[in-house]
């Protein structure tokens, strides 16, 4: 299922790109900090929290401005994101990271001739979760979550907004905020037998970027 959704998103983005060839383009990069909302995991009446550790991220994007109030962008985000579990004052984690590729539509409140342009964004893509650390025979809180060195790819829904500020002809500064919503990565953060975990994973991603239009 995850694989099919991923293909659908890429097809959506690819279908849009030909229509805007020859228009205004923007390429940029930036950095940010990801804060994921932990999900509750329960085991025999006890509860804990599982999710991704907060972490810095780096991003690159390419955007096209086809219409005065509509543009689209393809974005890649690398984020430090160690899977972690905590309960009762204890915590366990395994080193990890995520890789996100998504396409967002941006609806601008003002014409592109304006220097400052707020916008809202939504889109979709895929997010790859990777546990990269070392497993061990005993992991604290393994009654809730088994932190696993493995890789998991999940579909992503992206919503948010931002504002772009023209610094100079051809140069823009952007502040963005996204909520990347995925199903919970239950292979990297494998619920232990008998443990229950529900919900989606929300990863809140504030970004600052510099872009060049041409």
């Amino acid at each position, binding site marked *: 299922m995850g694989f099919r959704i991923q293909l659908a998103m890429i097809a959506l983005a690819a279908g849009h790109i030909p229509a805007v060839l020859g228009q205004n383009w923007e390429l940029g990069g930036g950095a940010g900090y990801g804060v994921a909302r932990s999900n509750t995991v329960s085991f025999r009446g006890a509860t804990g929290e599982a999710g991704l550790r907060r972490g810095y991220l780096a991003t690159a994007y390419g955007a096209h401005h086809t219409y005065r109030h509509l543009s689209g962008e393809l974005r890649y985000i690398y984020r430090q994101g160690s899977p972690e579990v905590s309960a009762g004052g204890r915590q366990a984690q395994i080193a990890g990271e995520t890789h996100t590729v998504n396409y967002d539509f941006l609806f601008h409140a003002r014409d592109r001739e304006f220097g400052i342009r707020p916008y809202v964004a939504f889109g979709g893509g895929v997010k790859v979760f990777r546990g990269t650390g070392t497993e061990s*025979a005993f992991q604290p809180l393994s009654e809730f979550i088994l*932190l696993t*060195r493995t890789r998991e790819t999940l579909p992503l829904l992206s919503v948010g907004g931002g504002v772009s500020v023209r610094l100079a002809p051809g140069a823009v500064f952007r502040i963005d905020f996204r909520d990347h919503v995925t199903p919970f990565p239950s292979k990297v953060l494998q619920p232990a037998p008998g443990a229950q975990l529900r919900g989606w994973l929300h990863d809140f991603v504030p970004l600052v970027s510099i872009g060049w239009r041409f």
Partner: protein
Amino acid sequence: MAFLLAVAIGWCARPGAAATFGKVVPIGGHIADLAYDARRNLVYIANFGASRVDVLAGSTQSLQGPIYVPAAPGTLALSPDGRFLVVGHFLEGTPPQIAPDPVALTVLDLDADQRRTLPQSLLGSSPLAVAFGAGSRALVVTRTRFFLLDPFTGELEPLTIVTDLQTDELPVPFATFPPEILRASAGVSGDGRIIWVAAQLREGAPEQVALIRYAVESRELRLAGFTASPPAGPRVVSVNGDGSQLLAGWALINENLILLAEFPYPAGELHVGGHAYDYRRDVIYAHIPLPAAEPGGASREPVLELFDTDNLTVRERLRLPENLAGKAVFSSDMEFLYAASDSGVTILPVGALARAPRVRAVQEDVLFPGNACDNRPIVREIDLVDLGGGATDFRLELPAGTRGIRLSGSAGSTPARVAIEVDPSFYRAQKGTTAIELVIRSSAAVNIPPPVRLLINTREPEQRGVLRNVPGKLVDVLADPVRNRLYVLRQDKNLVLVFDAGTYEQIAALRTGNTPVQMAMTRDNRYLIVTNDHSQLARVYDLETLEPSQPIVFPPGHYPRSIAVSNRSILAVARSASGPHRIDLVHFDERIATAPSQLGIYTNEVSAQTVLSASPSGNVIFGAMPDGTVLLYETTADTIVASRQDLEGLAGAYAALADGAFVVGPNLLNASLVPVAQAGQLEGTAAGYGLADGWTVRTLAGAPSSPGVIERVELSELRSVSGAKMIEAPVLAKFLESPPVGQTGQTILPFLRTLAPLANRQAMISLSRSGITILPWAFDEALAQPVVERVVNSADYTGGLAPGSLILIQGMHLSTVPEMARERPLPTILGEACITVNDQLVPLFRITESEALAQLPYTVSGTGRLIVRSPGGTSNPFVLTILPGAPAVFRSGAAGPQTGLPTIVRQKNGELVTLSNPIHPEEAITIYLTGLGVTSPLIEAGQPAPGEPVAQPVLEPRLTLGQVGLPIQFVGLVAGEIGVYRIDATIPFWVPTGMSVPLTIAQGTYSTTLSVRVVR
């Protein structure tokens, strides 16, 4: 080059004779003193009779031309800068008409090749000792005065102390040697700051010794007089690095003149023997001949012994080419020791001693445990090694007429392992333990290898107890009432051995003084006090930390032996070097002891072999002497309140069982020490008394190799109520006594404490021939027949069994004493029980009353009948089904708090496979298991598996993970382990993943399956 030379000259083996350590350079005369010249690598030798100073070149180990001096050189010393050699001449007794004012000192300026002489009139009498410390002036000791000599100007500065030292006078009869004439010797600390001199203090009394300490920097001179019996020979002073400790004659003394230790068997001869304090290697080299009257003392074989510097424990014994005879000096690098000896100088390459050929067995004892189930020969191995690391010849010798023992080789070259096979049928009649000495000889080794004691036990099923071999001379045993510990005194190595009273494993060894005799605990159970027969100190240990605490200092010349602690006073019997032996009062808080002349109404004079025992309440202390005298101390009166002599010739076991009940030998004494009962005809001598659950328990010994007896005794009549035969005899004093082995101490009192009921009520411990015997607490209880209820493999605890499987036998009354195997191969009797399957013996890892861990023989298959035999009888057969292969993965893994995990290991990180450490494709795993059946080559059950060739199962196992076959890289027994197999396998990429993937190990028709997590 220096090393090669050292090896070449250091030791030599002559055909037909044992090798010796050191090389003799004859000088033609008698040596009075030596000095080493570091700058020129020369040794100056005061050749007393020849009136010259011989010169030995260190580089060539040969004599150079001598330095002629005007009179007999009795002493000499070299200035620290190597420029001045000061020679003291001894002319006492020379008539004035022959030499009106003879030369007393010659100062040789070795750099300027000049000499200066000083007449005797300047000194008043002949110099007895000359020594340089770190300063520029020499200390000169004469009979009456001490001087400082400036060798540059020849000026003499008298020091304040005046004394009257004694010497012989010339001429002397033939065969009189310089140390007997001068009777003085000096030694300098390694840092040159302290000079110690020992000299005779009184005329005609060689036992009267003056010890003089001179501090070079402060010029402080102290003198103390001692009485040494026998005389303090050899007349040599050896000092440690900072002058805080010295050996004078046979005594090791500290700077406060406390006798730390003494050689136990000094002959007291002034001119035979010698010693040197190697402060760099922390060892003392000494040749101390045994008195001729001692057994073996007449042989006069010269032996160099290496001693520990704190308590003179003998480390090693080396053969010397000839007797040492006085002083010894080290080369500046301390690689060589130049020692005066009978013919001249013996050069001892002590720096190369670690590489010298020295043969010994790794094992001190080899125990052949008795097994009522098994009459087959027992094989044990000993390892012969050369401590120098080389290949050195050895020869093993059993006493003439020894039967039933076969050695796999009686001669060879180190390193070697020799199998000793004992046929127990030859010793069956003993029903106890026979000790046979296996002597080790070597023509190339310079040491005297200690013999190996072969302990052959034979027993009947009803004989009670479990043997725990503890080598050495064990003279006292004490159970800690609050710590679940046991203390055993090993006299020959000067140790308190501390055992866990639950597992009987040794957990510590505490160093005592020389020749420890007895132990006692303070009433608060905090400290252990150990008396020593060759030290002025009783050692004290903090039992909370097992660390030494401040020792107790006894009066000079007092050597503490028996000790007892009451609620009020601590009494110790002290052997006195002079005068009557006494009971000393120990003031524990001050850590001193005093010797009152009177105890109550009694004169404080006792036998040195008196023993003391405090009652359990601590209210009284009972004492007994071999001549039948007994005495009683009461805390209320705080003195001796009664003493009688109604009995004769007391010996053996003794105890204060209550405030008004004392036993000694077969006698019971009441509160007034009146004999009120005597045991009737006993099956031996009373060896130990103890209290258990309000009962008195007694052990008896007949002959050393016969079984002992333990019995419950009705105290009022000392009548045996019930009893059992012991597996071996408890020790008696006469069993322990042996001819002295060099200067290893031996003080065996006629009374011994050999029985210790443990505080945990698990067992009673008896000192016995092999070490300790662990006797069941309820030794006389009617024993129930063993019952086997269940037999499973000890890996996954299922009924899958195969030849060689490790098995767990569960039931009741399997064993009377819990015991764990300590040796490999595994024993076939443990905890007084043995187990057979189809009449084949089962090797045992451990056994308790309800459980036994064992290994099935490799030679059983099909239907097996398992039978347990114990002192309680023989179990009914338990029927087993033994398959050709029944793999079972151990559940002994642990990770954090998780236990019982299968022993499957990810090779990538070396950790157990768990849910948090899953298997990944394209990795490798290792599985530890049992039950893979017969191997090729075939291994005998109970034997550790060999490393090469690998013992592989004859029936190949198959592995699948989620129905995918796993390639096996290795399968076989784990080298060094017993009954443990290992399978190494790789995980293909295409194995299914999941939280619970079945991992199946199949062999023949049997398979076992575990669930593992697999993650891609």
